[in-house]
């Protein structure tokens, strides 16, 4: 069985499916960051804006990923682009929620002190709010990335390609080795994403915060 699974990975179309999966996930994640981050930054100082963003984010998180992908079908048609739109929509809520709460939870005293030292609004944002919120923001990006890699498996149902193609092929042709090869590849990719972004998260935690975390815990 193991040998048969490895044979699937040696197939000429496997690298292409893997590439599609990674491109789908990565582009969706980057576009989601490009949308969610400016919104979170814009509403960082307004109570109402943050409440709206968090509620929209919570509702967005409740929407099943298959529902979003399937709904993209009647509106955007079959294919890669359609899957990309759906995955981007799915990737936004965790980033928006975490960035918004992370920026809002920066201690008011620190911001007051910075203002007292004469820092401008944008200096406070880049020098204080963003670095302090960085771990929370990265946790959101990590959640979103893992979820996007998982949901990209479903892209196959609307003709978006990716590693899900192998699962569907194995299931419909009753080829257990193809089914398992696809499933294992997706699972490994998800775990690599989880571990990789966990490392990024630690790398982006400012030194001062790490020291503070160590002292506390």
């Amino acid at each position, binding site marked *: 069985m193991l040998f048969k699974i490895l044979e699937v990975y040696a197939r000429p179309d496997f690298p292409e499916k893997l590439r599609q999966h990674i491109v789908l996930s990565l582009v969706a994640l980057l576009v989601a960051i490009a949308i969610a981050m400016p919104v979170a930054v814009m509403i960082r100082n307004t109570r109402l804006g943050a409440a709206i963003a*968090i*509620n*929209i984010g*919570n*509702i967005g*998180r*409740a*929407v*099943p*990923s*298959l*529902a*979003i992908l*399937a*709904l993209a*079908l*009647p509106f955007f048609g079959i294919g890669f682009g359609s899957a990309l739109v759906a995955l981007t929509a799915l990737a936004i809520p965790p980033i928006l929620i975490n960035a918004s709460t992370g920026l809002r939870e920066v201690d008011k005293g620190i911001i007051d002190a910075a203002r007292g030292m004469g820092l401008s609004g944008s200096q406070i944002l880049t020098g204080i709010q963003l670095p302090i919120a960085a771990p929370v923001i990265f946790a959101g990006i990590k959640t979103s990335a*893992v979820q996007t*890699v*998982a*949901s990209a*498996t*479903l892209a196959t*149902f*609307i003709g978006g390609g990716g590693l*899900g193609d192998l*699962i569907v092929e*194995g*299931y419909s042709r009753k080829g*257990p080795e193809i*089914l*398992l090869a*696809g*499933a*294992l590849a*997706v*699972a490994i990719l*998800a*775990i690599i994403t*989880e571990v990789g972004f966990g490392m990024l998260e630690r790398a982006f935690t400012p030194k001062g915060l790490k020291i503070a975390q160590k002292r506390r815990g």
Partner: protein
Amino acid sequence: MSNPALLLLQDVLEEPKLIDWEWIKENFWEDIVPALQGHIFLSFISIGIALIIALPVGVLSARYRKAYPPVTAVTGALYSIPSLALLAILISIPGVAIGPSPVIIALVAYSLLILIRNTVAGLDSVPPETIDAARGMGLTNRQILFRVELPLALPIIVAGIRIATVTIIGIATIGAYINGGGLGTLIFDGIGRQFPTMIISGAVLATALAIVADLLLLALERYLRPWARARRT
């Protein structure tokens, strides 16, 4: 709170070509209602089984701290496997037939991490003074667990049930691919037949079910934790 979702719903429903109301009327009782019932059934059973496993494991992990890291490692690994992949792996196991059982196994597997983590966090949140006071009043360990610790941990446990339920309702749609039933059946049949009405009814109902479950459990969580009602969770 529900405004954006309602607006979206309205947009979708007002598009005349996408929704074939005749089909919905004709198939409401034969197709749509059973799919919804099946979905609720799948989600309920799975959360129930998951709680039966997670509560004792959570209590034991809170007591015997050394057991907690391996427990989170195993359940965390299960949680990070994409659902379609987990379903595919499950039906590859000899003796596991396609149908609702592998779907329920997968849904239980996904909820364990959240439920165990929140049970432990809930028990950790009980102030040690409260436990001391209970012990001083002569309560046995068992009484302390059932009458003091678990009731105080309940809001956090319910918060976990809420996250797990929303997750499960979403993942259950994918179970239809391996004949697990539920609202995903409408979605997959709709994709197969290129019939948007079926896709939309399945997707919209699954979304609505997840949001309703989320709000109901949020209300329960707030009700159980009156002291934190002012604060946002």
